[in-house]
Structures are given as C-alpha cells and as structure tokens.
C-alpha cells in the first residue's frame, strides 16, 4: 500500500500549508487575564452596554459557575484552565472607532486582504461580487461593508455591539430566546463574556439582495474568542448568510466558544453557511483552536432553516447546529462536510426537533478522516407526540483514509408519533479500488483521481454553498485532502 503511505505524507504536507497562519502586529487593548465578575463588568463597560445586558451577562456567569464541562463527546483534551486566557482583546485603534472604511487601520485591512476578504475593493467593485461583509477581529467587529445599500431595504446588518446601542429593543427581545444563557456550559460562558459578532434583521417580506457574510479572525495570543451572532428573519423574508473563520498558527490551544441564534418567523427562510478553517494544530497535535460552538435555529410556520458547514479546521470541533421545527410545515436542513487530519478531533452533527405538524428535515453528513484523526457524527432526530406527518431523512457517510484514523456515527432517533416517518442510513468505507482503477485506467494520475472521488463524495453538500463560496470551499477540501484517499 505504497500509495497510502505516500498520500498520508501528502496530507501532512498539505497541512503545513495552513495559509492563514500569519500574525498581525497590532497594539491590543486587553482585559486583565482570567475570568471573574470583574471581567464581565469590564467587557460590558468597554462596550458601554445598558444595565439590563450587564445583568444578563452576570446571571449567565453565575449560572456558568454551577455547571460542569460536558464530557460526553468523543474528544479528548487536557483540562482547560479558564483563568489562563484573555476574554477581551481589541485593536487599540478601536478606541476611536472608524467612521468609514477609509479610517480603518491599514494593518487590519491588509490582514483581511491576505485572508482573501478585500473589504475596500468590495466597496469599489460593488455589484461585481455582491456580498456584504462584517469582519470580526479578535473580539470586535472592525468593518461592515454595503451598509448603505442594505439600509435601503430596511435590512439591519451590523456588529452586535452596534445593534445593542442602536436597536436595543430587537436585541433584548431575541437574544437568548433560542439558546438560553443556561443552555449548556459553553453557551453560558459565551453569554457572560461575548464580545462581538454580527446582528442581522430582515424586515417582513424582504428578500435580502446579497449574501451577508462575517469573517472571524483570532489574532492575539492567549485569547479566547466568544462571538455571538443573531439573525432574525421576519415574516416572509429571505437571507443567505456565510461565516468564515481563520486564526494564526500558535503552539498554544485557543478557545473559541460562539453562540449563533437564528429566528425564522412565518414563511421566512434562512440559509446559513459556514466555512470553518481555524488553525488545526500541527501534525503532532500541538496548538490549534478548540471550537466549542452552540448553533440553533427556531422555525415558525412554513419557515425554513438550512445549515451548511464545511469543517476543515480546529484541533477539536464540538458543534451541533440544530433546528427547532416549532411551526407547522416548517423545514430544517443540515448539510455537512467534516474533514479531519493529523490529530484533529471532530464531534459534530445536528439536532432536528420536530414539534409542529408536517415538519420536514433532511440531514446529509459526510465525514472524512485521515492521519491519526477521529471524526464523529452525532445527531438527534426527535419526533414529538404532536408532530403529525413529520418526516426526516438522514444520510451519514464516512470515508477513511489510512488505518490510524477513526470514523464514528452516533445517531439518536426518537419518535413518539405514529404518522411521523424517520429514515436513517449510515455507511463507512474507504475509496473503492474499483473507482480508483477506473480513473487510473483512463490516464488520470492517482492524486487527481483521489481528489475527484472525494469531491464526488462531498458534492451533495458542497453544492448547497452559495456560489461565491463554493469555490473557496472546494479549494479547502483540495488542500486538506489532495491525493489523500487510498
């Protein structure tokens, strides 16, 4: 099996190519290290937040103190010292916040250009690539593009800290309504110390004219990133939203504990796509991001929420984007590609909670493990007693590359309704020798053949991504897995 050895080496090389591993030298404004009520107060004060939000944070913090870290996921890591991290880091220049992109620290803009998010150019080239971007650097949002265009339609798209100042009534009404502060250990932590993130409100009947996007970047050392995203799609509206994530290469593990809440009111649709490429650590498992994320959406009548994720980064991924299908006839979807390599560990999946009548959900999860990595699909489909006529279809496929990795599938299927129908299928295999032989015989080099087959394996998911990002995601899959299947 020389080909296998060779391909494993290639995968190794590919990860050396973590191209987002640079650090930007910027003067940072930080909270003192560690976590206490004072840290929470410090963050709240820095953000000039109203009293109710400080109370909300403190309540979450106090609740967090009573909780224990979840240990049920199939991931292993040394205990995290929550006192050994900074909970707030902002570029100094934030003190006098830029009024427009022209005033943004050029070093920051350079960073985003390196990441492939040329904020400035986009404003210039408006209409060529119709994407509005909110960029979050460590703990704060640094720039939001296309605001003016969006405002014409009444769409609010800004940093959540801005929304707290400008639209407190909306934030207060919806924040914590889908993921309560006491939901789980990491969600409680996030609620206490969240620093920024994006807020988006689409008014009734409005179809958002462009993709909305947030880029998250962890830059400072020993910093945790705790962003909070809240998207509210009012009745009959539509929005497609994408988030991308990168971080510098560092030897230490950094914590990222985000909370994302989606609210799709009657007849609304939210399409949420993630390309997660946090630094995964080196081949010995040194460094990398711990990605402990809570994502959940609430569907009212006839609403639809679709999660698409391409997970290639992070040392550890703990993430279960979920849909609460509360309204009758609502729809939830989950499309996922999770690629793990070297010593990465991923425990990811979804929850579909069918509450309303005739609710439907579809889960397509593709896991690819290489090197010494472990990848687990963990998902729950629950049909409540009133979910008459509800339907779920789940397909989980795992591909193994090399004999030192693991691929696991742990679905939970619970049905309390006779007329509900659940179908679940899972397969685990390696790339078949027949497929490889077929390609090789037609003169396709082994590496290309393997990439081709893997792309085919993921296609169902990748094609769900908005066009602008599908290319980027495909490239990512290529980098992580070039010629690595055998």
């Amino acid at each position: 099996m020389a080909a296998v050895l060779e391909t494993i080496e290639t995968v190794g090389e590919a990860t050396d190519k973590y191209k987002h591993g640079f650090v930007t030298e910027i003067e940072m404004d930080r909270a003192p290290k560690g976590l206490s009520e004072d840290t929470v107060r410090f963050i709240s004060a820095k953000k000039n937040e109203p009293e109710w939000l400080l109370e909300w944070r403190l309540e979450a913090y106090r609740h967090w103190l009573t909780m224990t870290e979840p240990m049920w996921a199939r991931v292993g890591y040394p205990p995290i010292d929550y006192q050994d991290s900074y909970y707030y880091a902002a570029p100094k220049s934030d003190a006098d916040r830029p009024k427009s992109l022209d005033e943004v620290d050029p070093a920051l803009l350079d960073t985003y250009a390196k990441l492939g998010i040329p904020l400035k150019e986009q404003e210039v080239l408006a209409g060529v690539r119709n994407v509005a971007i909110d960029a979050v650097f460590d703990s704060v949002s640094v720039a939001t593009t296309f605001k003016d265009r969006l405002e014409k339609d009444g769409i609010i798209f800004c940093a959540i800290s801005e929304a707290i100042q400008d639209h407190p009534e909306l934030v207060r009404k919806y924040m914590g309504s889908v993921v309560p502060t006491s939901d789980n250990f990491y969600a409680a932590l996030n609620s206490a110390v969240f620093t920024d993130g994006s807020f988006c409100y689409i008014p009734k009947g409005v179809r958002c004219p462009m993709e909305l996007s947030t880029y998250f970047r962890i830059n400072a050392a020993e910093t945790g990133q705790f962003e909070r995203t809240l998207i509210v799609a009012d009745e009959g509206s539509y929005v497609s939203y994408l988030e991308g994530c990168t971080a510098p290469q560092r030897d230490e593990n950094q914590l990222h504990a985000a909370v994302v809440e989606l609210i799709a009111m009657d007849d609304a649709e939210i399409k949420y796509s993630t390309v997660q490429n946090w630094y995964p650590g080196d081949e010995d498992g040194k460094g990398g991001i711990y990605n402990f994320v809570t994502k959940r959406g609430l569907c009212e009548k006839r609403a639809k929420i679709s999660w698409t994720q391409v997970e290639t980064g992070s040392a550890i991924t703990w993430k279960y984007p979920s849909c609460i299908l509360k309204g009758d006839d609502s729809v939830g979807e989950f499309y996922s590609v999770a690629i793990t390599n070297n010593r990465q560990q991923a425990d990811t999946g979804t929850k579909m909670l069918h509450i309303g009548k005739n609710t439907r959900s579809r889960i397509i999860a593709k896991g690819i493990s290489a090197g010494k990595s472990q990848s687990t699909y963990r998902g729950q489909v629950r049909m409540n007693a009133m979910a008459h006529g509800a339907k779920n279809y789940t397909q989980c496929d795992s591909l193994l590359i090399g004999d030192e990795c693991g691929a696991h599938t742990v679905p939970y299927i619970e049905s309390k309704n006779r007329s509900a129908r659940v179908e679940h299928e899972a397969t685990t295999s390696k790339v078949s020798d027949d497929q490889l032989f077929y390609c090789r015989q037609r003169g396709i080099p082994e590496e290309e053949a393997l990439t081709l087959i893997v792309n085919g394996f993921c296609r169902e998911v990748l094609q769900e991504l908005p066009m602008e990002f599908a290319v980027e995601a495909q490239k990512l899959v290529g980098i992580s897995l070039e010629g690595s299947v055998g």
Partner: protein
Amino acid sequence: MNAMTDAGLLRDYETHAATLPGAGSGWLDGLRKGGAHRFEGLGLPTRRVEEWKYTDLRTLASDPFGHAHEPDADVSVPDMDLGAEPYRAVFVNGHFHAGLSDLTGLPDGLVALPLAQAMQNSKAFLESYLGRVATLGRRHFVALNTAWLADGFALYVPDGMTIERPIELVFIGATGDTRAAWHPRNLFVLHPGAQATIVERHIGQTGTYLSNTVAEIVLATGARLNHFKLQDEAADAFHIATTQIHASADAVYENFSLMTGSSVARNQIAIELQAPGSSCMLNGAYLGRGKQQLDTTTLIDHAAPDCKSSEVYKGALDERSKGVFQGRIVVRKDAQRTNGHQSNKALLLSDKAEIDAKPELEIYADDVVCSHGATVGELDEHALFYLRARGIPLEEARGLLIDAFVDGAIDEISNAAIREAFRSHAKAWQGGNS
C-alpha cells in the same frame, strides 16, 4: 446520581450466600463476592447512564425483591413444536425442576446439566470458564447475577460433535403475590467444530418478579451455535438478559430473539469476533403493547480481520408501549476487511407508542464496509388501501401487513421448524394471545 437504590437485591447477602450451591469453594466464593461488591458500588442504573438512556427502571427499583420460593401452584410447560424432540431442562423460579425436565439420550462425552449440579460434578470445567466471558466491568446486572450464581444450564460440546436435536431451556416464573428475583446463569462451551442448537423459552404465569439471566458462550474454531430465544414473561415481570459471546476463527453464532412479554425487558447481546473468519447473525423482533418497555441492546466487536456480522431487527409497538434499539458495531484498528451490516425497522401502531433507536458505528480500520439503517413509521397507507380496495376489512388488512413486516425478521431464522414455531407465536401476539 448515576445509581438508584439496589431494590433490596443484596439484602442479607452474607447469610444467603453461605447457603448457595458450592459455597465454601474458594474460587466460587471469590467470584460471587466480586459480583456483590461490584453491584454494591454500581446499584441499579438510572437513565443518566448512557447505556440506559432510554430504559426506565424506576418501576423495578420501586419496591424491594425477596428470594424466590417454590411455586404454590402446579406449573406446566406449554408445548412448542421444535421439529425434532428436544432435550429439555426446566427451571422454575430460577431452580432446576427435575420433574419437568428430560435430558435422557444425550450423547457421551458431553456435559449438559444444571449449573448447581455442575458445581458438584464438573468443577474444573466451570472454574476454567465461568466469569471469564461475562466479566463484571460496569455491567450492573452481570455483577448482580454473579453475586447470586446458583443455577442455570451448563453445556460443553467436545471437538467435532454435532448435537442433532435442539436443547430446550425453559425458564418459568410463577411467584403469585410475592415480589421475587432470580439470576440464572448459562454457560455454553463449544469446542472446535462442535455444533448445537439451543432454544431458550422464558415464560411466566403470574407475579412481579425479576429474571436476571446471564449467558456466557465460548465458540472455539469452526464451532457453530444456533441460539433462539423466546421471551414471553408474565405481564408484570422484569426480564433482563445479558448474553456474552467469544467467537474464535471461523466460528458462527446465530441468534434470534423474539420479545413479547414482561413489563420491562432488556435483551443485551455482546459478541467479540476474536479471530479471522468468525461471523455472527443477530436478529430479532420485539412486539409491545400496554405499557411495555422492550429494549434490545447489541454490541458487535470486530476485533480481528475478515469477520462478518449482520443484524436484522423489527419492532411493532402498539398502545402505550415503548421500544428501544441500541446497536453498536465496533471495528478495531487491525480488523481489516470487516463486513458489518445492521438494520432496525420499527412500526408504530398507536398514537401513544414510542420508539428510540441509537445505531452506532465506531470504526478504527479503513478497509471496511459497514452500514446501518433505521426506519420508523406507521403502516404503509397505500398497501392498506390496496387491501381494503379488495374487500379485506381494516383490522384484517392491518394484521396481514403487520405479519408481513415481522416476517421480514423471522425469515432470518435458519432452522425451518423453529422458524415456524416463532412465526406462529408472533402471529398469536397479534390476536392478543401472547
């Protein structure tokens, strides 16, 4: 809290343990004590223990159990046509009942006798196997069973011997008004090339009792065991069964379990495919009504390359019953060229019925083909319409479809006579007669 009370299951343990068969023999005392000690630490599992997430034992833990006594009334064994005349061992309330049993005509060289007798006659045999397959681990009920090791059935089949007639093991529960518990332990050892067919019947007449059975099975190279089980305990009974198997090279283990009885029943099977070429077929059907909880939990551990496993389970749940299926397939690092397939299909027949399924794959080798499928739903309305359009009354049409559905699993039974016996029991369930 991961443990609830122990429901008095170890009450007066020291006193009673001294009266158990074979007491005073060092290794046996040690084995029992180890079990008691472990159960003391574990208690009964609550739903916070992941393996017991879906089965609620609160009704079992609610009141203490006493020790089983001889039944007051006469007991009898209802006939079941197994094709050939079986060798029969009957246990009433956990104790061997010589009057109802018939073990005559067994071939020479075989050990086939009640465990309590084997503790006198075949000590060396027991000492080398008992407790070696069903290790305590964190298995609450194996620990409890080991603490009370007393009776059950011991079978040893020597090299190359095939036992043609089936061995029928009948466990009868009849406690009347007392709440009692017993813990049968079976040990089946098949030497290289040996073959046997075992039919276990767990039938209950009256009473609230706990039958906590453990079977330890060792299959040497090329051995084959066909193991069929009918669980039709009394309506208020608790039935917890643990079957643990070690399979050597080219050994074949076939299991079919039909569950219709008990208020709470759990059938757990764990097999280790330890050497290349071994295989297993685990199949079954669970048919529930009333407030029954019927739990099937399987673990197939592919520890060696070139092994095969397949599972087909079907469940039909009526009224307020609840079905649980947890099926885990593990493929270890060196178990290349593994083939493992699992299917669990459940039918909900009432608005109050419930099913929870957790099919799990845990794979550490790359050259494998593994899959699982699970479906939950109601009867196909198109099929129902088809039958009704042809003048078949609704109830009859439903009955036909349910039969056809359950047959999909029963057809997996390799032995024709036993297949038909199980089929007619499943049909009788529909008529409410089982």
